[in-house]
Protein backbone atom coordinates (compact mmCIF):
# COMPACT_ATOMS: atom_id res chain seq x y z
CA UNK A 1 0.00 0.00 0.00
CA UNK A 2 2.95 2.29 -0.24
CA UNK A 3 2.71 5.17 -2.59
CA UNK A 4 5.60 6.08 -4.82
CA UNK A 5 7.95 7.92 -2.47
CA UNK A 6 10.19 10.64 -3.77
CA UNK A 7 12.67 10.07 -0.97
CA UNK A 8 12.69 6.36 -1.51
CA UNK A 9 11.50 5.80 2.05
CA UNK A 10 8.46 3.56 2.01
CA UNK A 11 5.38 4.77 3.87
CA UNK A 12 2.93 1.93 4.36
CA UNK A 13 -0.66 2.28 5.41
CA UNK A 14 -2.17 -0.28 7.72
CA UNK A 15 -5.75 0.73 8.34
CA UNK A 16 -5.63 4.12 9.94
CA UNK A 17 -1.95 3.92 10.85
CA UNK A 18 0.99 4.87 8.67
CA UNK A 19 4.15 2.85 9.14
CA UNK A 20 7.52 4.08 8.04
CA UNK A 21 11.13 4.08 9.08
CA UNK A 22 14.19 6.26 9.01
CA UNK A 23 17.43 5.02 7.53
CA UNK A 24 21.00 5.91 8.33
CA UNK A 25 21.76 7.18 4.89
CA UNK A 26 19.11 9.87 5.00
CA UNK A 27 20.75 13.23 4.43
CA UNK A 28 19.30 16.56 5.49
CA UNK A 29 17.50 17.30 2.24
CA UNK A 30 15.98 13.85 2.12
CA UNK A 31 14.90 14.21 5.76
CA UNK A 32 13.06 17.42 4.93
CA UNK A 33 11.48 15.86 1.85
CA UNK A 34 10.43 12.90 3.99
CA UNK A 35 8.82 15.19 6.59
CA UNK A 36 6.93 16.90 3.83
CA UNK A 37 5.80 13.68 2.24
CA UNK A 38 4.73 12.11 5.53
CA UNK A 39 2.63 15.10 6.59
CA UNK A 40 1.00 15.08 3.16
CA UNK A 41 0.15 11.42 3.61
CA UNK A 42 -1.20 11.95 7.15
CA UNK A 43 -3.51 14.58 5.81
CA UNK A 44 -4.52 12.76 2.63
CA UNK A 45 -5.03 9.33 4.22
CA UNK A 46 -6.65 10.77 7.36
CA UNK A 47 -4.75 8.42 9.61
CA UNK A 48 -4.85 8.72 13.38
CA UNK A 49 -1.47 7.21 14.09
CA UNK A 50 2.04 7.14 12.66
CA UNK A 51 4.70 4.62 13.59
CA UNK A 52 8.25 5.60 12.74
CA UNK A 53 10.73 2.78 13.17
CA UNK A 54 14.18 4.13 13.97
CA UNK A 55 15.89 0.87 14.89
CA UNK A 56 18.19 1.28 11.89
CA UNK A 57 19.43 4.71 12.95
CA UNK A 58 22.97 4.53 14.27
CA UNK A 59 23.03 8.16 15.32
CA UNK A 60 20.52 10.89 16.02
CA UNK A 61 22.03 14.35 15.96
CA UNK A 62 20.24 17.58 16.75
CA UNK A 63 19.03 17.88 13.17
CA UNK A 64 17.34 14.48 13.12
CA UNK A 65 15.98 15.12 16.63
CA UNK A 66 14.46 18.35 15.42
CA UNK A 67 13.00 16.58 12.40
CA UNK A 68 11.33 14.03 14.67
CA UNK A 69 9.94 16.72 16.97
CA UNK A 70 8.58 18.71 14.07
CA UNK A 71 7.00 15.61 12.62
CA UNK A 72 5.29 14.81 15.92
CA UNK A 73 4.09 18.37 16.27
CA UNK A 74 2.72 18.60 12.72
CA UNK A 75 1.08 15.20 12.97
CA UNK A 76 -0.62 16.25 16.18
CA UNK A 77 -1.94 19.36 14.46
CA UNK A 78 -3.33 17.07 11.79
CA UNK A 79 -4.95 14.86 14.39
CA UNK A 80 -2.52 11.95 14.36
CA UNK A 81 -0.30 10.50 17.05
CA UNK A 82 3.34 9.77 16.27
CA UNK A 83 5.23 6.96 17.95
CA UNK A 84 8.93 6.61 17.41
CA UNK A 85 9.99 3.02 17.98
CA UNK A 86 13.20 1.08 18.45
CA UNK A 87 15.79 3.63 19.47
CA UNK A 88 19.12 1.89 20.05
CA UNK A 89 20.67 2.14 23.53
CA UNK A 90 23.83 4.01 22.43
CA UNK A 91 21.66 6.47 20.52
CA UNK A 92 19.50 7.10 23.60
CA UNK A 93 22.59 7.66 25.78
CA UNK A 94 24.15 10.04 23.28
CA UNK A 95 20.92 11.96 22.84
CA UNK A 96 20.53 12.66 26.57
CA UNK A 97 24.19 13.63 26.82
CA UNK A 98 23.72 15.93 23.89
CA UNK A 99 21.09 17.59 26.08
CA UNK A 100 18.20 16.87 23.81
CA UNK A 101 14.78 15.81 25.00
CA UNK A 102 12.43 14.68 22.29
CA UNK A 103 9.68 16.98 23.50
CA UNK A 104 6.26 15.79 22.45
CA UNK A 105 7.56 12.61 20.87
CA UNK A 106 6.16 9.33 22.16
CA UNK A 107 8.51 6.38 22.11
CA UNK A 108 8.14 2.62 22.08
CA UNK A 109 10.63 -0.18 22.54
CA UNK A 110 9.99 -1.71 19.13
CA UNK A 111 7.55 -1.57 16.26
CA UNK A 112 5.32 -4.20 17.83
CA UNK A 113 4.87 -2.29 21.08
CA UNK A 114 4.47 0.92 19.13
CA UNK A 115 1.63 -0.60 17.16
CA UNK A 116 0.09 -1.87 20.39
CA UNK A 117 0.22 1.65 21.80
CA UNK A 118 -1.55 2.85 18.67
CA UNK A 119 -4.35 0.43 19.41
CA UNK A 120 -3.28 -2.64 17.46
CA UNK A 121 -3.24 -5.95 19.28
CA UNK A 122 -1.33 -9.00 18.30
CA UNK A 123 -3.63 -11.88 17.35
CA UNK A 124 -3.29 -15.17 19.25
CA UNK A 125 -2.18 -16.90 16.04
CA UNK A 126 0.68 -15.59 13.99
CA UNK A 127 -0.90 -13.11 11.58
CA UNK A 128 -1.19 -14.25 8.01
CA UNK A 129 -0.71 -11.51 5.53
CA UNK A 130 -1.91 -8.01 6.24
CA UNK A 131 -4.98 -8.43 8.37
CA UNK A 132 -6.82 -5.23 8.85
CA UNK A 133 -7.96 -6.00 12.35
CA UNK A 134 -6.93 -8.54 14.90
CA UNK A 135 -8.84 -7.79 18.07
CA UNK A 136 -8.06 -10.66 20.41
Amino acid at each position, binding site marked *: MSGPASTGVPILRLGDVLITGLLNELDDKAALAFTHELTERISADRVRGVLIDISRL*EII*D*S*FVARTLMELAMMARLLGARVIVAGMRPPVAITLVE*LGIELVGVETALNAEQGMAALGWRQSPQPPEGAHRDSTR
Partner: protein
Amino acid sequence: MTQLANTSTTSHAARTDTDAAAEPGTTRVVLTTEEDLLTVRHAVRAATLAVGFGIVDQTRVVTAASELARNAYIHGGGGVLTIDCPRRHGGKGLRLTIRDEGPGIPDVDAALVDGFTTGAGLGHGLGGARRLMDEFEVRTVPGGGTTVVATRWVPR
Protein backbone atom coordinates in the same frame (compact mmCIF):
# COMPACT_ATOMS: atom_id res chain seq x y z
CA MET B 1 37.91 23.55 28.35
CA THR B 2 37.25 26.24 25.89
CA GLN B 3 40.05 28.36 24.65
CA LEU B 4 39.81 31.44 22.59
CA ALA B 5 42.64 32.43 20.37
CA ASN B 6 41.56 35.60 18.72
CA THR B 7 45.05 36.75 17.99
CA SER B 8 46.98 34.34 15.85
CA THR B 9 45.68 33.55 12.41
CA THR B 10 48.94 32.27 10.97
CA SER B 11 48.60 28.73 12.26
CA HIS B 12 45.20 28.42 10.61
CA ALA B 13 46.39 29.53 7.22
CA ALA B 14 49.21 27.00 7.34
CA ARG B 15 46.86 24.20 8.22
CA THR B 16 44.58 24.55 5.22
CA ASP B 17 47.49 24.15 2.84
CA THR B 18 48.53 20.84 4.34
CA ASP B 19 48.32 18.08 1.81
CA ALA B 20 45.72 15.37 2.16
CA ALA B 21 46.63 12.40 4.33
CA ALA B 22 50.14 13.65 4.88
CA GLU B 23 50.58 11.54 7.99
CA PRO B 24 49.64 7.91 8.12
CA GLY B 25 46.46 7.30 10.08
CA THR B 26 45.16 10.74 9.25
CA THR B 27 41.97 11.11 7.25
CA ARG B 28 40.78 14.26 5.64
CA VAL B 29 37.25 14.97 4.44
CA VAL B 30 36.37 18.08 2.49
CA LEU B 31 32.88 19.38 3.22
CA THR B 32 31.29 21.18 0.33
CA THR B 33 27.94 19.51 -0.20
CA GLU B 34 25.31 18.05 2.05
CA GLU B 35 26.23 14.55 0.93
CA ASP B 36 29.64 15.15 2.47
CA LEU B 37 27.97 15.10 5.89
CA LEU B 38 27.32 11.40 5.30
CA THR B 39 30.92 10.92 4.20
CA VAL B 40 32.01 12.54 7.46
CA ARG B 41 29.94 10.08 9.47
CA HIS B 42 31.31 7.10 7.59
CA ALA B 43 34.90 8.28 7.91
CA VAL B 44 34.57 9.04 11.63
CA ARG B 45 32.77 5.75 12.31
CA ALA B 46 35.56 3.85 10.58
CA ALA B 47 38.15 5.75 12.60
CA THR B 48 36.41 5.07 15.93
CA LEU B 49 36.37 1.36 15.06
CA ALA B 50 40.05 1.42 14.17
CA VAL B 51 40.98 3.13 17.44
CA GLY B 52 38.95 0.59 19.40
CA PHE B 53 36.07 2.55 20.90
CA GLY B 54 33.05 0.69 22.30
CA ILE B 55 29.68 1.10 20.64
CA VAL B 56 28.50 3.91 22.94
CA ASP B 57 31.68 5.93 22.47
CA GLN B 58 31.52 5.33 18.73
CA THR B 59 28.04 6.79 18.72
CA ARG B 60 29.15 9.77 20.83
CA VAL B 61 32.06 10.63 18.55
CA VAL B 62 30.13 10.16 15.31
CA THR B 63 27.28 12.30 16.66
CA ALA B 64 29.69 15.04 17.74
CA ALA B 65 31.33 14.94 14.32
CA SER B 66 27.94 15.22 12.67
CA GLU B 67 27.09 18.30 14.76
CA LEU B 68 30.42 19.97 14.07
CA ALA B 69 30.35 19.16 10.37
CA ARG B 70 26.84 20.52 10.04
CA ASN B 71 27.88 23.69 11.86
CA ALA B 72 30.78 24.17 9.46
CA TYR B 73 28.53 23.43 6.50
CA ILE B 74 25.72 25.76 7.51
CA HIS B 75 27.62 28.61 9.17
CA GLY B 76 31.05 28.29 7.61
CA GLY B 77 29.94 27.55 4.06
CA GLY B 78 31.75 24.23 4.14
CA GLY B 79 35.07 23.23 5.57
CA VAL B 80 37.64 20.53 6.08
CA LEU B 81 37.57 17.77 8.67
CA THR B 82 40.79 16.10 9.71
CA ILE B 83 40.66 12.91 11.75
CA ASP B 84 43.74 11.65 13.54
CA CYS B 85 44.62 9.41 16.44
CA PRO B 86 46.72 11.09 19.14
CA ARG B 87 48.37 9.10 21.91
CA ARG B 88 48.86 10.05 25.53
CA HIS B 89 50.47 8.05 28.36
CA GLY B 90 50.01 4.89 26.34
CA GLY B 91 46.32 5.69 25.77
CA LYS B 92 44.72 6.15 22.39
CA GLY B 93 42.25 8.75 21.28
CA LEU B 94 40.50 10.22 18.31
CA ARG B 95 40.82 13.86 17.39
CA LEU B 96 38.48 15.75 15.10
CA THR B 97 39.69 19.03 13.67
CA ILE B 98 37.08 20.96 11.73
CA ARG B 99 38.07 24.12 10.03
CA ASP B 100 35.88 26.47 8.05
CA GLU B 101 36.46 29.78 6.32
CA GLY B 102 33.18 31.26 7.43
CA PRO B 103 32.45 34.52 9.25
CA GLY B 104 33.63 33.14 12.58
CA ILE B 105 31.70 33.03 15.84
CA PRO B 106 31.34 36.49 17.42
CA ASP B 107 30.67 35.13 20.92
CA VAL B 108 31.89 31.60 21.48
CA ASP B 109 30.67 31.41 25.07
CA ALA B 110 27.17 32.25 23.94
CA ALA B 111 27.40 29.72 21.11
CA LEU B 112 28.31 26.99 23.60
CA VAL B 113 25.17 27.63 25.61
CA ASP B 114 22.32 25.27 24.76
CA GLY B 115 19.56 26.75 22.70
CA PHE B 116 21.82 29.22 20.92
CA THR B 117 21.22 28.95 17.23
CA THR B 118 21.39 31.03 14.14
CA GLY B 119 20.56 28.23 11.76
CA ALA B 120 18.50 25.10 11.28
CA GLY B 121 19.26 23.04 14.33
CA LEU B 122 18.32 22.85 17.93
CA GLY B 123 21.09 25.10 19.08
CA HIS B 124 22.73 22.10 20.70
CA GLY B 125 25.44 21.85 18.09
CA LEU B 126 28.56 23.21 19.77
CA GLY B 127 27.55 22.77 23.39
CA GLY B 128 26.23 19.27 22.76
CA ALA B 129 29.31 18.21 20.83
CA ARG B 130 31.46 19.49 23.68
CA ARG B 131 29.61 17.27 26.15
CA LEU B 132 30.18 14.24 23.94
CA MET B 133 33.94 14.75 23.76
CA ASP B 134 36.65 14.79 26.45
CA GLU B 135 38.53 17.79 25.14
CA PHE B 136 37.11 20.63 23.15
CA GLU B 137 38.64 23.80 21.83
CA VAL B 138 37.19 26.52 19.63
CA ARG B 139 39.45 28.94 17.80
CA THR B 140 37.65 31.61 15.92
CA VAL B 141 38.53 34.86 14.26
CA PRO B 142 35.76 37.27 13.30
CA GLY B 143 35.77 37.17 9.52
CA GLY B 144 38.57 34.62 9.50
CA GLY B 145 36.88 31.30 10.03
CA THR B 146 36.51 28.84 12.87
CA THR B 147 38.49 25.80 13.90
CA VAL B 148 37.11 23.31 16.38
CA VAL B 149 39.42 20.66 17.81
CA ALA B 150 37.67 17.90 19.75
CA THR B 151 39.22 14.77 21.23
CA ARG B 152 37.84 11.70 22.94
CA TRP B 153 40.10 9.18 24.68
CA VAL B 154 39.56 5.47 24.73
CA PRO B 155 38.69 4.53 28.34
CA ARG B 156 41.31 2.26 29.90
